[in-house]
């Protein structure tokens, strides 16, 4: 079937197989930031935005993006670069494989919650697994990032 959609702001027209998942389509389109860690919607690595809301691209049919806007980390490089410095300074990137999905959710959270509490942050990001860091450094990164963004964290 044919679909038309916006990928990182640009109109795309594609012929897709009926059962094709968004994850596979995005990798084919060269969005290599999108990773797969589990195939069962348990890890959060394949997180992208559909109409500005985070979704797990391994569980979204490509057919569902017809007429809609999809954003991957490739489309958010400015913000990603800024956030990456905070991650890098804390050594929180580690193997890096889960980072893009995590960053997609962080950037969505900042838009959605403004200045969240620690509990809200944990809940919002609960679906993003990471095996390297143990998550503690993520919170240090987020505290600095939010503070310096002028948002701060609610205590």
């Amino acid at each position: 079937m044919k679909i038309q959609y916006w990928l990182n702001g640009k109109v795309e027209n594609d012929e897709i197989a009926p059962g094709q998942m968004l994850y596979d389509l995005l990798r084919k389109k060269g969005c290599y930031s999108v990773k797969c860690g589990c195939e069962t919607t348990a890890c959060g690595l394949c997180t992208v935005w559909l109409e500005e809301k985070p979704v797990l691209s391994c569980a979204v049919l490509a057919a569902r993006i017809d007429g809609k806007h999809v954003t991957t980390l490739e489309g958010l490089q400015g913000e990603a670069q800024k956030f990456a410095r905070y991650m890098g300074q804390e050594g929180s990137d580690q193997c890096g494989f889960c980072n893009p999905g995590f960053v997609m959710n962080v950037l969505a959270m900042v838009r959605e919650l403004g200045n969240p509490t620690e509990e809200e942050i944990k809940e919002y990001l609960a679906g993003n697994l990471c095996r390297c860091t143990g998550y503690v450094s993520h919170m240090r990164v987020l505290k600095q990032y939010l503070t310096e963004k002028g948002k701060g964290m609610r205590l």
Partner: protein
Amino acid sequence: MREINRVVMKKDALQLVTGKPAYTEDLAPEGCLIVKALRSPHARAVVRHVDTKAALAVPGIECVLTAEDVPKTRFTIAGQTYPELSPYDRLILDTQIRYVGDPVALVAGRDAACVDKAMRMIKVEYDVQEPLLDFHQAVDNPIIVHPEEDWNPRVPVGGDNKRNIIAQAEEDWGDVDAAFQKADVVIDRTYHTKQVQQSMMETFRAYTYLDEFGRLVIVSSTQVPFHVRRIVATALEIPKSKIRVIKPRIGGGFGAKQTVVMECYPALITLRTGKRAYMVYTREEAMTVSSPRHEADVHVRLGASRDGMIQVISVESLWNGGAYGDHSPTTVTLSGHKSIPLYNRFSAFRFRYTAVYTNTIAAGAYRGYGATQGIFALESAVNELADTLHMDPGALRLQNIVQQGETMPAYFNETALSCNLGECLKRVQSMIDWEHVYPRQVLPNGKIRAAGLALAMQGSSISNVDVASATIKVNDDGFYTLSIGATDMGTGCDTILAQIAAECLDCSVDEIVTRGVDTDTSPYDSGSYASSTTYLTGMAVVKTCRSLIEKMKEKAARMLEHADASELEFTGDAVVDPASGRKVTRQELGNAAMITNDIALEATETHYSPTSPPPFMAAVAVVDVDPETGHIDLVDYAAVVDCGTVINPALARVQTEGGLVQGIGMTLMENVQFDSNGRIQNNSFMQYRIPGRMDIGSIRVEFAPSYEPNGPFGAKSIGEIVINTPAPAIAEAVYQATGLRFTELPITAEKVYMGLKSKK
């Protein structure tokens, strides 16, 4: 010290966080054949016949290989230095099935859809046999997992395939039986740990192709590129010179990728078809046909005097190797060698072990490498000893632990040249306000808060075995390239080793470009495992820098028309003649090396270590247990680590935090369960839960450095030790909260609830 003990951002951080293509799958070219394995649903069977006709007729299918199509040389996939202690007991495809998931056929086709379709159309006739699933029953069981005559132990490690024994040994020091007779108190317990999955986010994967010289190139997510080359050459019966292995960025390893789990499959397909091939393991495959931590029974006996002096320690380990030997002969030794030496006041110790074959998934290497199981057992027993004697477990340990300068009879008589374990212990107790938190208090909400303590050790590289090398080159304008054979898997070694080089060469880290592994061009390194990279490759870097400085001086002497290079001084930016004040800048040197030159501004040095200096640590877990539900909340975890000099505090901290959380997962939630036919039930992240950020309370890490004279700038290892404390510390905290002594992991709410119920 400019670059040592300084936070430096990982060289790849910005690329990785922003999602740039860097991993195996990102780099795999278009048009690779997709390779998948058809796997046995039976734990033990003989494959009588495989009918591939219909599968081969599926459009897009390139080839289907079965046992009759593959080489017949047995090999091991354990990524270890040759000759491996692991028996050669595998074939790429075998007619004898030894566990659920053993491959029966390899299918390659133009896309995943046609391969899936073809796999459904392969008909396999099995002669299903009764499996051997219980590792306690393995020795001398009538069911023999490896009946083959060509079972081949390259190095004698006490194995006997006809008895299902992979490895076996015993070691006694002092009069063990007499020491137990003299002891006032004896603690005698057996601890059971289950298989645990490394669960790195990037599963196993590799792509293969023939290059312009007809050589086989393997791009693999591996910790052991040079071992991949040797192992694949052995398995495919081709010369090692025909293989080149490249390691891109790795999405986590934790030891899983110290086993050459799947590289042979796409490699064989490429050899047979001449075409590019790509294979990626699904998460289910990564959970069921991979290289998890060994299930183990560790029987500990401790004999002590009434005043809490540990007089004798006995550790006897039974190791479930599963279907293949892999890392069994080596991991099992750490259960004693890297637990008993924590204490050093005893007059005798005993360490005995047996690793056995069963018809379950073959176990491999996982951070801690056997020490984790041993330390859970020994540290739990020490906690019980303290409890039995009504002593503070910290005070009891302080009077028994190894001290700097002492010889460790349980650690190959090595001397602890760097040990700050006592300080780790005291510091962690003060961090956690031990006096008030231990042993327990009832909270207003009815939960019981309690604390538990544990110590840990590991090694730094495999003494007298591991080899590490580094090559450093001076380039145009004087920038350096550092080539290493060690594999950064997210640990940051590309950066850490550059920090060490920058310190030696008196320049900034940014002036050093690190180039990771390509077996054609990188200097030899055993690989990144056994806590070896910072300690061993780091030392190779130090030696290389020394040699390179001599070369730069030699070149500068020539340029200054100075007779004696030894009179010149290297200042980082230049080589200076102190007598005349004349100098040649590094920029000039680098450029001069590229015109009319016969002095290579390049050095390679290689290093091994006759010792394996242990890092040490102490940790306290604080839990809230709900007596109504059995739910355990890990509210605080404090750890103090002695890894020698901390090269990069940010990376060392995150290594520690990550290792602790993996250990916490193993202790509280990660639970591999088999059904009665030997099938793993927990084969996805839905059924096999690893910790998420909601599962983690406060985790606090501090360092209490010692100075290791044999390490680079005093450094020891940190990568593995950090996984070892959570199991014994949390088990003790749960005991203090509930009175229930858990000797089996994981400790779940269900087990606590049932335990409390049966106590009433």
